[in-house]
């Protein structure tokens, strides 16, 4: 995990590469070219870009209109605004209408760190999952983000893709393959399974390494697709483990943890601990500091797992 890259840059670069061949691809943004890392697309293919200014509702509506005219429309902008300000447009103009719009929601979760809760999106999995007709995807590294971008271009279905802002370790290999709607078993252990999504997955992998040093062999699962959700994999994991710890950069309400619990409600019996952001506005700090404060980093995950194992006996 030595190489680092921001997933937003991986998506932007991949999309530009594909767009050189696929004339149906267009990009819409709301004064977020820099933060989305999409300047290259604007420079090279300006005739296929639409800048709407600071107007997220217009961005989504315009993208829907483009998509209904046979374009493959990509909207790039901050997750906090597209999962809130433009949410009704995502619900009606995109998901309900069934227009082929992909929302690339950048700087998600607490990526903006000290800028505060106006700029955080810790509710987006819950909100977007409750809308029929749109996939909800959180890539865990640049290579997976690249693969998912390629996958999205082939699909006519709307999607909400939440990525972060900062460079994160690359955890996959260039030859890694991903399937739509499927989770990935990253590490096979036995005492406990750590199930994570998005940009905390590498922390989960690091935590597994730290746990191994104290004699705990943890399974690690990456769940990039929050919708459709790989229920079969969760049930299979639950069949083989007595304890599951979920990790997500999201509210503990309505996110990965609750989705896992939902899968287990009628399935195998298993104790579950959810690590996420509690029901409060996060403390001020960088993304790394906020992670550490709420136990989302590798050390925090390690401690939570040990505590969970001890407590459960």
């Amino acid at each position: 995990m030595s190489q680092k890259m921001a997933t937003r840059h991986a998506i932007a670069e991949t999309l530009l590469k594909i767009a050189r061949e696929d004339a149906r691809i267009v990009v819409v943004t709301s004064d977020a070219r820099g933060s989305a890392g999409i300047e290259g697309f604007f420079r090279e293919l300006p005739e296929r870009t639409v800048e709407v200014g600071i107007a997220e509702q217009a961005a989504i509506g315009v993208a829907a209109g483009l998509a209904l005219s046979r374009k493959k429309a990509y909207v790039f902008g901050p997750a906090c605004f597209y999962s809130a300000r433009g949410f009704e447009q995502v619900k009606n103009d995109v998901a309900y209408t069934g227009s082929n719009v992909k929302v690339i929601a950048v700087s998600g979760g607490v990526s903006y760190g000290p800028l505060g809760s106006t700029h955080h999106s810790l509710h987006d999995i819950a909100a977007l999952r409750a809308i029929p007709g749109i996939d909800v995807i959180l890539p865990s590294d640049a290579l997976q983000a690249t693969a998912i971008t390629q996958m999205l271009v082939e699909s006519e279905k709307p999607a909400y893709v939440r990525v972060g802002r900062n460079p994160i370790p690359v955890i996959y290999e260039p030859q890694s393959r991903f399937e739509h709607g499927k989770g990935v078993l990253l590490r096979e252990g036995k005492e406990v399974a750590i199930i994570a999504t998005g940009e905390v997955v590498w922390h989960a992998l690091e935590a597994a390494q730290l746990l191994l040093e104290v004699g705990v062999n943890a399974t690690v699962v990456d769940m990039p697709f929050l919708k459709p959700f790989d229920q079969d994999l969760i049930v299979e994991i639950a069949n083989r483990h007595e304890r599951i710890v979920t990790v997500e950069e999201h509210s503990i309400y309505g996110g990965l943890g609750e989705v896992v619990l939902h899968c287990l409600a009628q399935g195998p019996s298993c104790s579950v601990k959810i690590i996420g952001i509690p029901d409060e506005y996060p403390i001020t700090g960088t993304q790394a500091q906020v992670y550490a404060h709420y136990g989302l980093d590798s050390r925090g995950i390690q401690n939570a797992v040990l505590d969970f194992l001890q407590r459960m006996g």
Partner: protein
Amino acid sequence: MKTLMKKAIQLRMDLLQMIHRANSGHTGGSLSSVDILVALFYRVMRIDPTRPLWEERDRFVLSKGHSVEGYYAILADLGFFPKEELERYCRLGSFLTGHPTRKVPGVEVNTGALGHGLAVGVGMAIAGKMDSKPYKVYVLMGDGELGEGSVWEAAQVAAHYGLDNLVGIVDRNRLQISGYTEEVLRLENLAEKWRAFGWEVVNVDGHDLERLVGTFEKVPILAKKPHLVLAHTVKGKGVSFIENKKEWHHHVPSEEELRRALEELNRQLEELENDVSKDGYKTCNC
């Protein structure tokens, strides 16, 4: 023109019956917008009911999605789907929901939440420019709808991109659900507002079919500008006891009210039949 006028009266009768049968609907706004729809669908727009997704078609977006009954009645009349389906409007399992959806052949986008249609129309118009296609995009909005800030976001984008293939239409009936628009929250000076946003504004009597057709046929007047047709209308137009009554925003006509309304509209049809002065519009091909 007489045929077109008769069509508008007939559609008013159809939509009132639909609302009565479904026990649901938006009577006032549907009646105020019928003539605008008739002008567009029977005379102005290039459409083909046998090919609803024909790429060269003109696009129509009903941003005031609640005025759906007249829209459905027209699409059925033109043959986009069988007329019998109108009898199932709002019934369990019907594809004719109380606000338009793309399940209905001819409908371009799911609407109903106000303030959405113009941005979608802007996207369609930008796509037309990107692909050098000659189609036009028409977006019908309510006047009360203009309270939504998203309308003005879209208006700015349209002006910035010089979308002269986009025609916004405001059904200016001066009433919204709570009362007069100017009392609920002042909208005027509407024409000046749209002009200030970079649009070319044309005022028209929204019930004068000849003028409506003429207006739509002459836009764009200016290149590289989106156009706004400010159609001055009467909410509930065509039925004396419904006109200009806020209560009729979504009041459903009772059996007796429907009977009286149809009687009035039938009388208008007869009068029109006997009025030779309306025979003269030679270019009408409807």
